[in-house]
């Protein structure tokens, strides 16, 4: 009886361990969306640089004072 109980408990424990190993499809999709948005740079509320030419990221400030 006691050994049978122990055996049952061991089976239960190993079942708990195997439960964890499944692919979280929804989480993966969420992660993919986040990564793709970062790489393709689509932050919320901003437009895509679809019609921009390839310019370096650093642009001079707009309100630069004219040189004397």
């Amino acid at each position: 009886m006691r050994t049978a109980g122990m055996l049952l408990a061991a089976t239960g424990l190993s079942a708990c361990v195997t439960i964890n190993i499944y692919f979280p499809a929804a989480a993966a999709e969420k992660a993919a969306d986040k990564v793709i948005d970062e790489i393709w740079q689509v932050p919320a509320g901003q437009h895509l640089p679809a019609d921009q030419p390839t310019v370096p990221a650093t642009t001079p400030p707009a309100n630069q004072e004219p040189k004397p």
Partner: protein
Amino acid sequence: MITSMQPVSRCLGWLTLGLRHAYAVVKALLCGAFLSTALTLSAQAAADLDVNTPAVAAVKASMQSRHVQLLPYFQSGAVGLTADGFVAVKEPGLVPLSQRSALTALVKDENADRTNLYRGIAAANGHPEWEGEIQRTFAIRWIDKAQPGWFVQRDGQWLRK
């Protein structure tokens, strides 16, 4: 009288049974509690995938800076998104001869980064065996998020979005 005593004796019967198997009852409760904790933990772990390890962040940054170079090729249709989560030169004729080798290198580097991205996310979450599933998930999402006019591969055919 006998009928009114019946529920009481039945109740006592359950009580003695419960006491006799107290060890088993406690064990069952403990196992149940452990099981529910394990399930909760796995559910919490499943709520988010870690995509911010240094290795993954480096790949992302590299792909981010390359995207500026790839963008005109996506827009012209020279490069398209494949069904398996990579990019491919679809129409080399749209690119001047002088730029073609540079484009080939660009596509090759992009695909190397993408492999590292899928592998890196799987490893970052302690499941290297998830690489294939992560790649498949990305493949669908790249195509879903592609801008109108870009070429994407579906069922082995190139389609313009």
